């Protein structure tokens, strides 16, 4: 601004506007004198005003100005004038170049305000009679312009304006502004000249803006920039991270209004969350150990970083906005930053949600790894909001991909690719025979929640089968089965890449693979290793299925086994076994099976007979070992021992029967003797017979029961189940069930211990009886032989002496012998019946249903029960109901 020209112009203006001396002189000389002073003062005032930085409240827009003027004209009802003005203005603004007005807008503005002023003045003068004061402005009515301080401070307190006390007089009139020079500013008040009423709102906004700016020491732009830094976790100049408060806040040292502080704090929550996520990523990737994190943890960090890169993108855009301000259209000429704190709030709303989600995930996954981490993340994915779902879906696909890869490898190749122990299948190094049962286990801690337990079992079994085939069966045909499974899986639409959310695809693949591999395993077991044949062989030999063989064996081995245990030689027994095999139908069995049949001598104590330590065994190797483990074979041995003992007892009784055969001759023998002896002998003989019959009845029925109700039945069921078995686990379970049922039903189980003891004592008793009966009949036969020879009288003379002595001795012997025999027989009989009754009585109380059949067989005529009832009354009440039940059945 060329001030010399301006001051000259101003002087000119003053001169022109104020009335001339001549004019004033007409009125009075004193006025003329004052003119100069007034002119001088006016000039100062004008200069002062021009030096001030009063800003017009409307923008520098010529077109708008012209429009507004036209509108005013129209409003005044002067439409033609408005048109004329429009025309003029068009021509006026078309003029460009030297000699023209550059600042057209300013000129129009001046014209307009002057016009308004004139209009108002006219209106006022018209309305009022002649009052002079009303035409005067505020300052003029006070007798002149206010006294302004001598040093004109042009740039002074214009910026810091305290709130103006303004009042609107009326809608269509000026704002009257009071003079507030006496308030806080020592340099005196500054007039704010009133604007047109249309700008009332604008000026109010402007005042508010100035107020806000005055309140805060830091500009909003600086705060916004700092907040953006905080959103990336960096401390800015004003906004720093406070450890105690655990958040980003504006530094206390700066004077910032409380509302702004709260706003900044809210905005910086994003920064806090970002910090947390970033810390986790740093710890895991840059500083952490791989063993603690594992591949799943790494995948998690990678996907977090991807999400964060989206966030960075947004922050970059926002930062660009901060440095690239767009001028506002409404408030003044001053250029504001585009990005205010409130705009930032809106922009950061969505990233806040996302960052919160990531931070929650980070918190939950601390310390987890592998499948557990995947499961925890999956739990969070059960959320309704679509934004959360989309983020979680992306995240989970990444996180679960190592897991799914591991599953795939395990299921299709049997390889455990798990360096960091993240997989839910854990392998132990064990011997080959324990591979199936203990080699691999499920670790449910690492099982993610979206893989159900049944699927996990299948996965485990499939991989286990592959390993089993490879290790135990030496079979490489499983590769084909696996290839088929892979082909089937890829046919189902999955291009080999499984991901989260495709649990059904995984299930399909696993089921397919499981089916193929399991089928292959079973095929191998049946065909290559002849599982069925071996089971049958065990049944025939260990469970005494091959009757003729057992008979021969017992005949051959019997005498040897009666010796004390330590004198029995297993070689001899093995030889006897061989001859028994050759003698029976067993010779037609295959060599492979017969090879496995051996004699086993169990560890013996003192006083044991051979019978107690003898047993057969069947040798099995891998892979059949997995089914017939040591425990299983021990059970078989138990059953064999029991059956063998039963067989021995039966054998003994039939042998007794053989010795008892020549009964008639014996009877006839004693007819010739005295009647007393005859009756005694006859009585004893008869007793012996009946006792033997009883025992035989018992043993035979027991044998039949074991053979038909227990062994054959269980075997049939086992065969059925073997057909139905889908995989090796099923097979093993079926076999276990088979064996368990045999053991339970033959009274060898836990619950039948008492009965078992009873049985054993019964057997012992029967053997004692056998010995007794043998002795009796031996003596009887000896007597008979002697008497025969005495009847023939061949050797009478020779044997007279011996006969008489021997006869006398035998006669004596016979009587006492008979008495002793009789006593013993009685004892045995009594003991037997009591034991037997005890046995029968306990049978119906047993849990197992089939034992009722045994009691039925043994007591089908209820002979014993009735006898029992006659003998004792107390246990009756217990037994009444079961008897009725058996009767009704």
């Amino acid at each position: 601004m060329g001030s010399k020209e301006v001051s000259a112009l101003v002087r000119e203006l003053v001169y022109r506007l104020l009335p001339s001396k001549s004019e004033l002189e007409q009125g009075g000389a004193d006025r003329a004198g004052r003119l100069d002073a007034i002119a001088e003062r006016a000039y100062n005032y004008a200069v002062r005003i021009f030096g001030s930085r009063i800003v017009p409240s409307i923008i520098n827009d010529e077109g708008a100005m012209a429009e507004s003027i036209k509108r005013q004209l129209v409003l005044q009802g002067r439409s033609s004038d408005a048109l004329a003005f429009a025309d003029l203005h068009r021509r006026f603004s078309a003029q460009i170049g030297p000699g023209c007005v550059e600042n057209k807008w300013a000129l129009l503005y001046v014209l307009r305000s002057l016009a308004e002023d004139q209009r108002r003045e006219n209106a006022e003068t018209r309305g009022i009679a002649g009052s002079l004061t009303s035409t005067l402005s505020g300052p003029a009515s006070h007798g002149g312009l206010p006294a302004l301080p001598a040093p004109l401070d042009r740039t002074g307190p214009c910026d810091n304006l305290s709130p103006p006390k303004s009042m609107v007089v009326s809608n269509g009139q000026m704002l009257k502004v009071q003079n507030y020079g006496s308030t806080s500013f020592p340099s005196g008040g500054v007039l704010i000249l009133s604007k047109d009423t249309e700008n009332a709102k604008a000026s109010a906004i402007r005042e508010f803006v100035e107020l806000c700016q005055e309140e805060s020491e830091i500009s909003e732009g600086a705060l916004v920039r700092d907040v953006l830094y905080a959103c990336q976790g960096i401390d800015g100049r004003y906004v720093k991270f406070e450890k105690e408060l655990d958040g980003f806040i504006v530094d206390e040292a700066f004077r910032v209004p409380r509302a702004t502080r709260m706003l900044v704090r809210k905005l910086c929550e994003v920064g806090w969350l970002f910090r947390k996520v970033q810390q986790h990523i740093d710890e895991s990737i840059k500083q952490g150990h791989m063993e603690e994190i594992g591949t799943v943890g790494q995948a998690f960090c990678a996907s977090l970083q991807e999400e964060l890169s989206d966030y960075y993108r947004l922050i970059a855009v926002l930062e660009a906005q901060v440095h690239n301000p767009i001028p506002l259209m409404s408030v003044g000429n001053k250029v504001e930053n585009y990005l205010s704190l409130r705009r930032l709030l809106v922009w950061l709303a969505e990233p806040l949600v996302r960052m919160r989600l990531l931070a929650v995930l980070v918190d939950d996954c601390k310390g987890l790894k592998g499948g557990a981490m995947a499961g925890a993340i999956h739990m969070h994915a059960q959320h309704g909001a679509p934004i959360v779902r989309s983020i979680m879906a992306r995240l989970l696909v990444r996180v679960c991909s190592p897991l799914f890869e591991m599953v795939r490898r395990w299921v299709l190749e049997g390889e455990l690719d798990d360096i960091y122990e993240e997989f839910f299948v854990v392998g132990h190094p064990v011997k080959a025979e324990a591979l199936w049962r203990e080699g691999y286990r499920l670790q449910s801690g690492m099982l993610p929640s979206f893989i159900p337990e049944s699927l996990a079992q299948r996965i485990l079994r499939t991989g286990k089968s592959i390993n089993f085939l490879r290790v135990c069966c030496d079979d490489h045909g499983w590769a084909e089965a696996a290839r088929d499974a892979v082909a089937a899986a890829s046919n189902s639409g999955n291009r080999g890449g499984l991901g989260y959310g495709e649990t059904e695809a995984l299930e399909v693949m696993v089921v397919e693979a499981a089916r193929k591999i399991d089928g292959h395993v079973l095929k191998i077991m049946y065909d290559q290793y002849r599982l069925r044949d071996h089971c049958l062989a065990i049944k025939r030999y260990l469970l005494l299925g091959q009757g003729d063989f057992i008979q021969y064996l017992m005949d051959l081995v019997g005498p040897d086994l009666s010796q004390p245990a330590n004198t029995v030689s297993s070689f001899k027994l093995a030889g006897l076994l061989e001859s028994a095999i050759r003698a029976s139908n067993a010779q037609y069995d295959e060599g492979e099976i017969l090879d496995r049949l051996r004699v086993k001598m169990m560890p013996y104590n003192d006083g044991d007979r051979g019978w107690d330590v003898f047993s057969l065994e069947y040798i099995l190797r891998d892979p059949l070992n997995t089914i017939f483990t040591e425990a299983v074979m021990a059970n078989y041995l138990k059953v064999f021992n029991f059956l063998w003992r039963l067989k021995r007892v039966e054998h003994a009784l039939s042998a007794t029967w053989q010795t008892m055969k020549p009964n008639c001759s014996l009877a006839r023998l004693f007819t010739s003797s005295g009647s007393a002896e005859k009756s005694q002998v006859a009585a004893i003989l008869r007793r012996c017979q009946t006792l033997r019959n009883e025992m035989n009845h018992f043993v035979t029925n027991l044998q039949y029961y074991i053979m038909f109700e227990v062994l054959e039945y269980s075997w049939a069921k086992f065969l059925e189940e073997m057909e139905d078995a889908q995989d090796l686990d099923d097979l093993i379970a079926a076999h276990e069930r088979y064996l368990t049922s045999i053991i339970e039903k033959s009274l060898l189980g836990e619950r039948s211990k008492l009965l078992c003891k009873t049985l054993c004592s019964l057997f012992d008793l029967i053997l004692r009886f056998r010995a007794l009966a043998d002795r009796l009949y031996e003596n009887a036969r000896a007597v008979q032989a002697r008497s025969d020879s005495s009847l023939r009288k061949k050797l009478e003379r020779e044997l007279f002496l011996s006969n008489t002595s021997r006869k006398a001795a035998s006669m004596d012997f016979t009587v006492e012998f008979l008495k002793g025999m009789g006593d013993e027989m009685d004892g045995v009989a009594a003991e037997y019946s009591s034991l037997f009754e005890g046995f029968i009585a306990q049978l119906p109380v047993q849990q197992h249903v089939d034992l009722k059949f045994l009691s039925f067989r043994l007591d089908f005529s209820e002979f014993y029960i009735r006898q029992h009832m006659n003998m004792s009354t107390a246990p009756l009440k217990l037994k009444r109901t079961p008897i009725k039940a058996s009767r009704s059945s």
Partner: protein
Amino acid sequence: MNERARETLELAYRMSNLLKTGLDRSTLAVVMALTEQGVNPEALAAVVKELRREAAALRSVSFSSAP
């Protein structure tokens, strides 16, 4: 050059007359010169108004004090 200046002034004068600002040609020329110089138009308008008032006051006083 002058032609154009005169034309501009003429146009401005006519506009000013339409708006009934009460400025005569010379005053308008001064005003135009001032705005060209970059003076704030609002301030300028305010000054003009004040000067006019002052003038009116002088005239009225002189007239009223006329004997």
